Protein backbone atom coordinates (compact mmCIF):
# COMPACT_ATOMS: atom_id res chain seq x y z
CA UNK A 1 0.00 0.00 0.00
CA UNK A 2 2.83 2.41 0.93
CA UNK A 3 4.58 1.64 -2.32
CA UNK A 4 1.36 2.30 -4.26
CA UNK A 5 0.93 5.63 -2.45
CA UNK A 6 4.49 6.60 -3.25
CA UNK A 7 3.96 5.80 -6.92
CA UNK A 8 0.72 7.78 -7.01
CA UNK A 9 2.36 10.72 -5.19
CA UNK A 10 5.23 10.75 -7.69
CA UNK A 11 2.74 10.63 -10.59
CA UNK A 12 0.87 13.58 -9.11
CA UNK A 13 4.08 15.59 -8.69
CA UNK A 14 5.15 14.79 -12.27
CA UNK A 15 1.77 15.91 -13.60
CA UNK A 16 2.05 19.18 -11.69
CA UNK A 17 5.58 19.76 -13.01
CA UNK A 18 4.42 19.20 -16.61
CA UNK A 19 1.47 21.53 -16.10
CA UNK A 20 3.73 24.24 -14.67
CA UNK A 21 6.46 23.90 -17.31
CA UNK A 22 4.21 23.87 -20.41
CA UNK A 23 3.75 27.67 -20.63
CA UNK A 24 7.53 28.18 -20.89
CA UNK A 25 7.84 26.26 -24.19
CA UNK A 26 6.76 29.35 -26.13
CA UNK A 27 9.71 31.56 -25.23
CA UNK A 28 11.88 30.98 -28.36
CA UNK A 29 9.76 33.38 -30.34
CA UNK A 30 10.70 35.40 -33.38
CA UNK A 31 10.22 38.99 -32.51
CA UNK A 32 10.13 40.44 -35.94
CA UNK A 33 10.90 39.24 -39.44
CA UNK A 34 11.10 41.68 -42.31
CA UNK A 35 12.11 41.22 -45.92
CA UNK A 36 14.37 43.29 -48.12
CA UNK A 37 15.41 42.81 -51.72
CA UNK A 38 18.46 43.47 -53.87
CA UNK A 39 17.54 43.83 -57.55
CA UNK A 40 19.83 43.56 -60.56
CA UNK A 41 19.49 43.13 -64.32
CA UNK A 42 21.83 40.78 -66.17
CA UNK A 43 22.24 41.98 -69.73
CA UNK A 44 22.50 39.47 -72.52
CA UNK A 45 25.66 40.31 -74.49
CA UNK A 46 26.06 37.31 -76.74
CA UNK A 47 23.99 34.66 -78.44
CA UNK A 48 24.83 31.59 -80.44
CA UNK A 49 23.10 30.59 -83.62
CA UNK A 50 23.25 27.14 -85.23
CA UNK A 51 22.41 26.53 -88.91
CA UNK A 52 18.81 25.70 -89.75
CA UNK A 53 18.58 25.32 -93.55
CA UNK A 54 20.28 24.17 -96.73
CA UNK A 55 20.71 26.78 -99.46
CA UNK A 56 23.01 25.01 -101.97
CA UNK A 57 24.00 21.36 -101.56
CA UNK A 58 26.94 20.45 -103.78
CA UNK A 59 29.15 18.82 -101.18
CA UNK A 60 28.58 15.30 -99.88
CA UNK A 61 27.07 14.55 -96.49
CA UNK A 62 27.84 11.75 -94.07
CA UNK A 63 25.73 10.63 -91.10
CA UNK A 64 22.82 13.01 -91.56
CA UNK A 65 19.92 13.66 -93.93
CA UNK A 66 20.64 17.32 -94.51
CA UNK A 67 23.83 19.33 -94.81
CA UNK A 68 22.89 21.81 -92.10
CA UNK A 69 21.82 18.87 -89.93
CA UNK A 70 25.29 17.34 -90.23
CA UNK A 71 27.00 20.46 -88.85
CA UNK A 72 24.47 21.87 -86.34
CA UNK A 73 26.07 20.09 -83.39
CA UNK A 74 25.19 22.82 -80.91
CA UNK A 75 28.69 22.47 -79.49
CA UNK A 76 30.79 25.57 -78.83
CA UNK A 77 34.48 26.17 -79.37
CA UNK A 78 35.47 24.84 -75.93
CA UNK A 79 34.29 21.32 -76.81
CA UNK A 80 34.79 18.73 -79.53
CA UNK A 81 31.74 18.37 -81.77
CA UNK A 82 30.16 15.13 -82.99
CA UNK A 83 32.58 13.68 -85.55
CA UNK A 84 30.37 11.00 -87.12
CA UNK A 85 28.24 13.43 -89.14
CA UNK A 86 29.88 15.97 -91.45
CA UNK A 87 29.92 17.46 -94.93
CA UNK A 88 32.89 16.97 -97.25
CA UNK A 89 34.07 17.54 -100.78
CA UNK A 90 37.02 16.93 -103.06
CA UNK A 91 35.45 18.84 -105.95
CA UNK A 92 35.61 22.56 -106.54
CA UNK A 93 32.00 23.33 -105.70
CA UNK A 94 30.30 25.42 -103.04
CA UNK A 95 27.94 24.35 -100.33
CA UNK A 96 25.80 26.99 -98.60
CA UNK A 97 23.82 26.66 -95.36
CA UNK A 98 21.42 29.16 -93.79
CA UNK A 99 21.03 30.58 -90.29
CA UNK A 100 18.03 31.97 -88.41
CA UNK A 101 17.46 35.72 -88.40
CA UNK A 102 19.43 37.70 -85.86
CA UNK A 103 16.72 39.80 -84.29
CA UNK A 104 18.97 41.98 -82.21
CA UNK A 105 19.98 45.60 -82.31
CA UNK A 106 23.35 47.03 -81.35
CA UNK A 107 25.31 44.04 -82.64
CA UNK A 108 29.03 44.73 -82.29
CA UNK A 109 30.54 41.53 -83.66
CA UNK A 110 29.52 38.39 -85.51
CA UNK A 111 32.00 35.53 -85.26
CA UNK A 112 31.80 32.47 -87.49
CA UNK A 113 33.14 29.33 -85.84
CA UNK A 114 33.98 26.23 -87.88
CA UNK A 115 35.34 22.85 -86.77
CA UNK A 116 37.04 21.39 -89.83
CA UNK A 117 40.02 19.57 -91.37
CA UNK A 118 41.67 19.33 -94.78
CA UNK A 119 43.57 16.68 -96.72
CA UNK A 120 47.12 17.06 -98.01
CA UNK A 121 46.15 19.14 -101.06
CA UNK A 122 42.71 20.37 -100.02
CA UNK A 123 42.03 23.98 -99.16
CA UNK A 124 38.71 25.21 -97.76
CA UNK A 125 37.48 28.78 -98.14
CA UNK A 126 34.62 29.56 -95.79
CA UNK A 127 32.66 32.78 -96.24
CA UNK A 128 30.31 34.46 -93.78
CA UNK A 129 27.73 36.18 -95.96
CA UNK A 130 25.06 38.77 -95.31
CA UNK A 131 22.39 39.02 -98.03
CA UNK A 132 24.74 37.07 -100.35
CA UNK A 133 27.65 39.46 -99.80
CA UNK A 134 30.75 38.06 -98.13
CA UNK A 135 31.56 39.94 -94.92
CA UNK A 136 34.33 37.76 -93.49
CA UNK A 137 36.37 34.80 -94.79
CA UNK A 138 38.31 31.93 -93.30
CA UNK A 139 40.88 29.93 -95.24
CA UNK A 140 41.79 26.46 -93.99
CA UNK A 141 45.05 25.49 -95.63
CA UNK A 142 45.97 22.00 -96.85
CA UNK A 143 46.83 19.36 -94.29
CA UNK A 144 45.09 21.16 -91.40
CA UNK A 145 44.12 18.93 -88.47
CA UNK A 146 40.67 18.84 -86.92
CA UNK A 147 40.06 21.97 -84.89
CA UNK A 148 38.01 25.10 -84.26
CA UNK A 149 38.76 28.16 -86.42
CA UNK A 150 37.00 31.49 -86.65
CA UNK A 151 36.57 34.64 -88.66
CA UNK A 152 34.99 37.89 -87.46
CA UNK A 153 32.66 40.46 -89.00
CA UNK A 154 33.20 43.61 -86.99
CA UNK A 155 30.58 46.33 -86.53
CA UNK A 156 27.95 44.98 -88.92
CA UNK A 157 25.91 47.93 -90.17
CA UNK A 158 22.84 46.15 -91.45
CA UNK A 159 22.09 42.51 -90.77
CA UNK A 160 19.88 40.64 -93.22
CA UNK A 161 19.97 36.97 -94.19
CA UNK A 162 23.05 35.23 -92.86
CA UNK A 163 24.50 32.27 -94.78
CA UNK A 164 27.82 30.43 -94.71
CA UNK A 165 29.48 29.23 -97.90
CA UNK A 166 32.02 26.39 -98.06
CA UNK A 167 34.28 26.25 -101.11
CA UNK A 168 36.71 23.41 -101.72
CA UNK A 169 39.85 24.08 -103.75
CA UNK A 170 42.71 21.81 -104.73
CA UNK A 171 46.13 23.19 -103.92
CA UNK A 172 49.11 21.12 -105.01
CA UNK A 173 49.55 17.96 -107.00
CA UNK A 174 48.32 14.41 -106.66
CA UNK A 175 44.92 12.88 -106.32
CA UNK A 176 42.36 15.23 -104.81
CA UNK A 177 41.87 15.03 -101.06
CA UNK A 178 38.91 16.27 -99.07
CA UNK A 179 37.78 19.32 -97.23
CA UNK A 180 35.70 18.23 -94.23
CA UNK A 181 33.44 20.38 -92.01
CA UNK A 182 32.07 18.86 -88.81
CA UNK A 183 30.38 21.76 -87.03
CA UNK A 184 29.47 25.39 -87.66
CA UNK A 185 27.87 28.13 -85.58
CA UNK A 186 27.91 31.89 -85.30
CA UNK A 187 28.43 33.91 -82.15
CA UNK A 188 26.75 37.31 -81.97
CA UNK A 189 27.94 39.90 -79.48
CA UNK A 190 26.06 43.05 -78.50
CA UNK A 191 26.92 46.41 -77.09
CA UNK A 192 24.76 47.07 -74.04
Amino acid at each position, binding site marked *: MNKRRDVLREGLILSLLIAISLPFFGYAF*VYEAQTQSVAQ*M*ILNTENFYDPTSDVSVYWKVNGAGSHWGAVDDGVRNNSTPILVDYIYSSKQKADIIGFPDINKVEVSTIILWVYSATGSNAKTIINLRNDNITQASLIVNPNSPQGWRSTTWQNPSSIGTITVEFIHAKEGTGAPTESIVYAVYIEVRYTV
Partner: protein
Amino acid sequence: MSRRKMSKKGKLAGLLIVILSLSLIGVSAYIYDQASQSVNQTVKEVATVNLKNSALGNLKEGETKFYTKSNVTDLGDAISIETTEVNVYLHLNSNLDALTAYVTYNIVVKFSTVPSGSSHSVGDTACTLSLSSPDYNSVVLDIAGTWKFDFEITTTANSVNSDTATAVTIIVSAESAP
Protein backbone atom coordinates in the same frame (compact mmCIF):
# COMPACT_ATOMS: atom_id res chain seq x y z
CA MET B 1 -13.71 -9.38 2.64
CA SER B 2 -11.87 -6.46 4.31
CA ARG B 3 -8.85 -7.12 2.08
CA ARG B 4 -11.14 -6.98 -1.00
CA LYS B 5 -12.71 -3.72 0.27
CA MET B 6 -9.31 -2.26 0.91
CA SER B 7 -8.21 -3.27 -2.59
CA LYS B 8 -11.32 -1.69 -4.17
CA LYS B 9 -10.79 1.51 -2.16
CA GLY B 10 -7.16 1.60 -3.23
CA LYS B 11 -8.06 1.13 -6.89
CA LEU B 12 -10.75 3.83 -6.64
CA ALA B 13 -8.29 6.25 -5.05
CA GLY B 14 -5.69 5.50 -7.72
CA LEU B 15 -8.24 6.06 -10.48
CA LEU B 16 -9.29 9.39 -8.98
CA ILE B 17 -5.68 10.58 -8.79
CA VAL B 18 -5.02 9.59 -12.43
CA ILE B 19 -8.17 11.49 -13.51
CA LEU B 20 -7.01 14.45 -11.42
CA SER B 21 -3.55 14.32 -13.10
CA LEU B 22 -5.06 14.24 -16.59
CA SER B 23 -7.32 17.17 -15.79
CA LEU B 24 -4.30 19.11 -14.55
CA ILE B 25 -2.52 18.52 -17.88
CA GLY B 26 -5.67 19.65 -19.71
CA VAL B 27 -5.85 22.81 -17.63
CA SER B 28 -2.13 23.41 -18.03
CA ALA B 29 -2.46 23.13 -21.84
CA TYR B 30 -5.10 25.81 -21.70
CA ILE B 31 -2.91 27.99 -19.51
CA TYR B 32 0.00 27.40 -21.91
CA ASP B 33 -1.94 28.86 -24.85
CA GLN B 34 -2.81 31.95 -22.91
CA ALA B 35 0.67 32.25 -21.45
CA SER B 36 2.38 32.05 -24.85
CA GLN B 37 0.25 34.95 -26.10
CA SER B 38 1.31 37.16 -23.26
CA VAL B 39 4.95 36.13 -23.78
CA ASN B 40 4.71 37.22 -27.42
CA GLN B 41 3.75 40.69 -26.37
CA THR B 42 6.60 40.89 -23.92
CA VAL B 43 9.26 39.74 -26.40
CA LYS B 44 7.98 42.19 -29.01
CA GLU B 45 9.75 44.95 -27.13
CA VAL B 46 13.15 43.38 -27.83
CA ALA B 47 13.92 45.06 -31.16
CA THR B 48 12.66 47.18 -34.04
CA VAL B 49 13.95 46.32 -37.50
CA ASN B 50 14.15 48.67 -40.49
CA LEU B 51 15.42 47.53 -43.88
CA LYS B 52 16.33 49.18 -47.20
CA ASN B 53 15.80 47.68 -50.62
CA SER B 54 18.62 48.13 -53.14
CA ALA B 55 18.80 48.33 -56.93
CA LEU B 56 22.24 47.46 -58.27
CA GLY B 57 21.52 48.31 -61.91
CA ASN B 58 22.82 46.41 -64.91
CA LEU B 59 25.49 43.74 -65.16
CA LYS B 60 26.71 42.21 -68.40
CA GLU B 61 26.85 38.43 -68.59
CA GLY B 62 30.29 37.23 -67.54
CA GLU B 63 31.03 40.57 -65.89
CA THR B 64 32.02 41.01 -62.23
CA LYS B 65 31.03 44.07 -60.23
CA PHE B 66 31.68 45.15 -56.66
CA TYR B 67 29.08 47.34 -54.97
CA THR B 68 29.41 49.33 -51.76
CA LYS B 69 27.52 52.24 -50.24
CA SER B 70 29.85 54.57 -52.15
CA ASN B 71 28.33 53.56 -55.51
CA VAL B 72 24.90 52.31 -54.33
CA THR B 73 23.67 54.55 -51.52
CA ASP B 74 21.02 52.13 -50.26
CA LEU B 75 23.67 49.57 -49.35
CA GLY B 76 24.69 51.90 -46.51
CA ASP B 77 22.77 51.10 -43.31
CA ALA B 78 20.82 48.49 -45.25
CA ILE B 79 19.71 47.01 -41.90
CA SER B 80 18.86 49.14 -38.86
CA ILE B 81 17.84 47.65 -35.53
CA GLU B 82 16.93 49.17 -32.20
CA THR B 83 17.28 46.67 -29.39
CA THR B 84 15.94 47.11 -25.88
CA GLU B 85 17.60 44.09 -24.37
CA VAL B 86 21.06 42.55 -24.38
CA ASN B 87 21.80 39.48 -26.50
CA VAL B 88 19.27 39.81 -29.26
CA TYR B 89 19.98 37.32 -32.05
CA LEU B 90 19.90 38.50 -35.65
CA HIS B 91 19.15 35.89 -38.33
CA LEU B 92 19.52 36.40 -42.09
CA ASN B 93 17.87 34.03 -44.54
CA SER B 94 18.14 34.61 -48.29
CA ASN B 95 17.17 32.93 -51.54
CA LEU B 96 20.71 33.11 -52.95
CA ASP B 97 20.81 29.33 -53.38
CA ALA B 98 17.94 29.58 -55.87
CA LEU B 99 19.76 31.96 -58.23
CA THR B 100 21.09 30.22 -61.33
CA ALA B 101 22.16 33.28 -63.31
CA TYR B 102 25.26 33.91 -61.22
CA VAL B 103 28.71 32.44 -60.84
CA THR B 104 29.32 34.57 -57.75
CA TYR B 105 26.97 36.48 -55.48
CA ASN B 106 28.47 37.44 -52.13
CA ILE B 107 26.81 39.77 -49.66
CA VAL B 108 29.16 40.86 -46.89
CA VAL B 109 27.24 42.32 -43.94
CA LYS B 110 29.32 44.80 -41.94
CA PHE B 111 28.65 46.68 -38.72
CA SER B 112 28.25 50.40 -39.46
CA THR B 113 26.82 51.53 -36.10
CA VAL B 114 27.48 49.71 -32.82
CA PRO B 115 26.30 50.66 -29.29
CA SER B 116 29.08 51.54 -26.90
CA GLY B 117 30.24 48.68 -24.75
CA SER B 118 29.67 46.06 -27.44
CA SER B 119 32.29 43.48 -28.32
CA HIS B 120 31.73 44.36 -32.00
CA SER B 121 33.34 47.29 -33.82
CA VAL B 122 32.29 49.43 -36.77
CA GLY B 123 33.70 47.95 -39.97
CA ASP B 124 33.81 44.39 -38.66
CA THR B 125 32.18 41.72 -40.81
CA ALA B 126 29.06 40.37 -39.13
CA CYS B 127 28.49 37.61 -41.68
CA THR B 128 28.69 36.75 -45.38
CA LEU B 129 25.87 35.32 -47.47
CA SER B 130 26.73 33.50 -50.69
CA LEU B 131 25.28 31.14 -53.29
CA SER B 132 26.46 28.16 -51.24
CA SER B 133 25.72 29.71 -47.81
CA PRO B 134 22.51 31.70 -48.24
CA ASP B 135 21.61 31.90 -44.53
CA TYR B 136 23.34 32.97 -41.33
CA ASN B 137 22.40 32.17 -37.74
CA SER B 138 23.08 34.31 -35.87
CA VAL B 139 24.72 37.69 -35.21
CA VAL B 140 24.61 38.36 -31.48
CA LEU B 141 23.65 41.95 -30.66
CA ASP B 142 25.17 41.94 -27.21
CA ILE B 143 24.21 45.43 -26.06
CA ALA B 144 20.86 47.21 -26.15
CA GLY B 145 20.87 50.19 -28.49
CA THR B 146 21.10 51.17 -32.15
CA TRP B 147 22.69 48.74 -34.60
CA LYS B 148 23.22 49.36 -38.30
CA PHE B 149 24.73 47.23 -41.04
CA ASP B 150 26.17 47.99 -44.48
CA PHE B 151 26.11 45.57 -47.38
CA GLU B 152 29.09 45.01 -49.69
CA ILE B 153 28.09 42.93 -52.70
CA THR B 154 30.15 41.15 -55.36
CA THR B 155 28.33 39.65 -58.33
CA THR B 156 29.50 37.76 -61.42
CA ALA B 157 26.83 36.93 -63.95
CA ASN B 158 26.52 33.72 -65.92
CA SER B 159 25.62 33.66 -69.59
CA VAL B 160 21.95 34.35 -70.20
CA ASN B 161 19.83 33.92 -73.32
CA SER B 162 18.08 37.25 -72.85
CA ASP B 163 18.17 40.17 -70.45
CA THR B 164 17.35 38.69 -67.06
CA ALA B 165 16.02 40.53 -64.02
CA THR B 166 17.07 39.08 -60.68
CA ALA B 167 16.12 39.83 -57.09
CA VAL B 168 17.71 38.53 -53.94
CA THR B 169 15.29 38.38 -51.04
CA ILE B 170 16.68 38.55 -47.53
CA ILE B 171 14.52 37.87 -44.50
CA VAL B 172 15.97 39.59 -41.45
CA SER B 173 14.64 38.50 -38.09
CA ALA B 174 15.52 39.36 -34.52
CA GLU B 175 14.92 36.83 -31.81
CA SER B 176 15.37 36.59 -28.10
CA ALA B 177 16.96 33.17 -28.59
CA PRO B 178 19.75 31.88 -30.88
